[in-house]
């Protein structure tokens, strides 16, 4: 009798979640299309003046990605909770926080990363200057995993309740605001020629903290939700 290794358990979680997302790819694509639509609609609604679009570009991209991530957040643990596989995760001999961290990583990979990959194009669409696009991608790379991790803790807290969507939004949004301010702030600073390193470093510091603490908080919250 041998319990498998922790790395094979993590690999199993990642592999299963990616397969599930592939089988439900219609649903999984929804948040990404949502973000693309929001960003594409802004120039249509505001008019094609480059000056105006340039000013709001980074903020629009950030808000669109944040809301897209929020859309996909509720499904993070919901189906696992309902079909009992969350129980199996809790009962597995491996650290629950690590397994949940893998689930959050898959969430980030499938909702944020594709959008970050096309972020330079989205910047182009909104007339964002070329040198700021690099800062935008960097800020998104730091901010979106942070959003996924913070969101996961809130989802873990509310997963045991029915119709928790409203509560989840109320819990998550105040925590998302600082991330948004630092992320979009870095881009705005870069655009006006101000130093933009400080907000990015703040984001990086917060990300490191969240990478360590959020999975632990998630595990504790899920244990409470299951009891």
């Amino acid at each position, binding site marked *: *009798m*041998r*319990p*498998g290794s922790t790395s*094979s*358990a993590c*690999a*199993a*979680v990642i*592999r*299963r979640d990616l*397969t*599930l997302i592939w*089988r*439900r790819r219609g649903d999984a694509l929804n948040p990404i299309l949502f973000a693309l639509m929001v960003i594409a609609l802004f120039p249509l609604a505001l008019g094609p003046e480059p000056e105006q679009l340039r000013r709001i570009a980074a903020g629009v991209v950030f808000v669109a990605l944040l809301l897209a991530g929020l859309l996909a957040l509720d499904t993070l643990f919901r*189906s696992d909770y*309902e*079909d*009992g*596989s969350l*129980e*199996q*995760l*809790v*009962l*597995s*001999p*491996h650290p629950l926080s690590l*397994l949940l961290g893998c689930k959050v990583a898959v969430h980030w990979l499938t909702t944020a990363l594709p959008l970050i990959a096309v972020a330079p194009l989205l910047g182009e669409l909104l007339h964002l200057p070329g040198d700021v696009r690099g800062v935008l991608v960097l800020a998104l790379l730091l901010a979106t995993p942070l959003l996924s991790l913070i969101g996961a803790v809130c989802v873990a807290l509310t997963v045991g309740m029915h119709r928790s969507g409203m509560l989840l939004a109320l819990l998550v949004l105040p925590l998302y605001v600082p991330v948004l301010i630092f992320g979009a702030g870095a881009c705005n600073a870069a655009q006006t020629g101000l130093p933009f390193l400080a907000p990015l470093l703040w984001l990086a510091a917060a990300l490191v903290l969240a990478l360590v603490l959020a999975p632990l908080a998630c595990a504790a919250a899920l244990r409470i939700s*299951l*009891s």
Partner: protein
Amino acid sequence: MPHSHDSPDRRALLEGRGLAFSRNDEPVFGPLDFALHEGEVVLVEGDNGAGKSTLLRVLSGLLAPTSGEIRLRGEPLTLARLSPQVALLSHQTGLKHELTAFENLRFAAGLQGQRKGISPLSALAGVGLDGYDDVPVRRLSAGQKKRVALARVLMAPVALWLLDEPYANLDHDGIQLVNRLLERHAHDGGAALITSHGAYAYTSGTPRRIRLNRLFEDAVEGAVA
């Protein structure tokens, strides 16, 4: 007496002492004393709502008992020590409907490890689902889903099985199959605690029974027969 059969040289695999659980100050079951030894199958009986499933969730470590203690091989239990030794089959089977039976079991094998000599495919064959490995679980019947969930338990490298209503949804062959699996597991030195609302039961030999009564009807304590 609950402990009368305990001999000192035979330490119980799982033991409950004064075990009780209350939800929002309403007692669900207990206080309950019992011991489960290697090679033993114990049947937990009780009407609907008597707390059978809750008992299994407490014993698996998902819920903390309100009072009393659980001992595993004689030592007080913590979730970290328990989880590598127990497999739980609950009402929610933990299967993903979009994945095939094989993919579900492969995930379980990665998560919980697998018993020597048993692979996801041989476990499926062991529960009579030969050839169903690439069928999405969504297309299986309720009884077949139960069998896939049993295959997961069968594959787990653990000594203790906690099976909640393993007979539900199963046909006659399925019931025989569960009994055979339980017999083999007990023969190999494992132990199992299974719940049943009484319609079907473990038929090989005469298993010990824990009878749970609904506490709000008559304040009778659960007792080991």
